[in-house]
């Protein structure tokens, strides 16, 4: 039986939904054009994940097995609609930036996947912790990728310039931001390199243990 802490923390690194389970890819590449959008999407998705995990866990003994997937979808879609309306009303700029990916949270494989694999078989507290952990892992992944793309693509983080490319050594090298990182290909390339980096750290760690 897992400890409460590990139920939460496994979603952060060991079973990180994006980097290890490779789920929920569509929003990851689409909204990580800047750290701000990444945080917005991460928080929205975590909210839906935690709430739907909680409700599905509460109802787990009442939902007949044959219609469980449509039932999960109804629950998840309801919370997504709530998020959509709240964001549209109170954070219109973020809502416009995230665009079509706000309603698409409903088909985020992470949320349906955790409902099926965990929330439908575990207690309320465990499901909430799992939701928080997976959501936090998702948020971390989004921020890492978003940060990389924003930094490499526009030399800014959260809108603030990072490196001074005019004077000094960097100016001498005539470096410029790599604009393609904020466009579609950048998402694929950054994710590919991060996954390669994680593979490398795994083999390096295995060699260190030998």
């Amino acid at each position, binding site marked *: 039986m897992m400890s409460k802490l590990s139920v939460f923390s496994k979603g952060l690194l060991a079973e990180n939904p994006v980097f290890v389970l*490779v*789920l929920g*890819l*569509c*929003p990851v*590449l*689409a909204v990580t054009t800047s750290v701000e959008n990444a945080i917005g999407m991460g928080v929205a998705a975590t909210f839906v994940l935690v709430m739907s995990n909680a409700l599905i866990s509460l109802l787990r003994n009442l939902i007949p097995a044959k219609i469980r*997937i*449509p039932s999960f*979808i*109804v629950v998840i*879609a*309801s919370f*997504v*609609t709530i998020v*959509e*309306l709240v964001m549209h009303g109170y954070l219109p700029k973020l809502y416009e930036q995230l665009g*079509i990916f706000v*309603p*698409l949270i*409903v*088909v*985020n*494989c992470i949320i*349906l996947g955790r409902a099926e694999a965990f929330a439908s078989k575990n207690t309320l507290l465990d499901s909430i912790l799992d939701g928080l952990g997976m959501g936090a892992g998702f948020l971390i992944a989004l921020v890492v990728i978003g940060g990389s793309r924003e930094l490499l693509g526009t030399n800014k983080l959260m809108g603030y310039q990072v490196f001074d490319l005019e004077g000094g050594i960097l100016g001498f090298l005539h470096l410029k931001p790599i604009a*393609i990182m904020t*466009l*579609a*290909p*950048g*998402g*694929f*390339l950054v*994710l*590919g*390199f991060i*996954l*390669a*980096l994680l*593979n*490398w750290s795994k*083999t390096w760690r295995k060699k260190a243990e030998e």
Partner: protein
Amino acid sequence: MKRMEIQHLTAIIISSIFVNNFVLARFLGLCPFIGVSKRVDSALGMGMAVIFVMTMASLVTWIIQHYILEVFGIPYLRTITFILTIATLVQFVEMVIQKVSPNLYNALGIYLPLITTNCAVLGAAILNITDELGLIASLVQGFASGVGFTLALILMAGIRQRLEVSHVPKVMDGLPIAFIVAGLMSIAFLGFAGFSF
């Protein structure tokens, strides 16, 4: 059809397949893109299933949006009704195909349930509404988006089949190299940007 309409529809087709390719430009449908694109024949099967479901879903969801949601003043229920409609549609299509053509069912069978939670189908349905298209235009966009998805899938499968027998650095093996390849394909498709009639 008037000349303007044909021009409009052609622009939609070119845009959905190349300029705004669902996978390589809009990032929709990535899970099956990475998961199913290991072999060209399974990629083709998945693509056919997606084209079919996307076109049907475009038709049904458009009707629901304009004749139910807007008439009763409940546009905010769009997400819920659309996803339930798509889930039901896929279930129904699976049953019909199983009865009518068991051969086709065996060819497509396992891919159909996977399509329900595919962001590509829901994405296409919502895009038809946000682009404010008419019924015929929505159908055309749904169909063409599916074709674009299939195109990207087949291209990816062809490349990955070659990659299997090539020397790939060990850290890159598997997913990393697949994403780098997708990135390069995406750069190629960027070349279509700014293409208009």
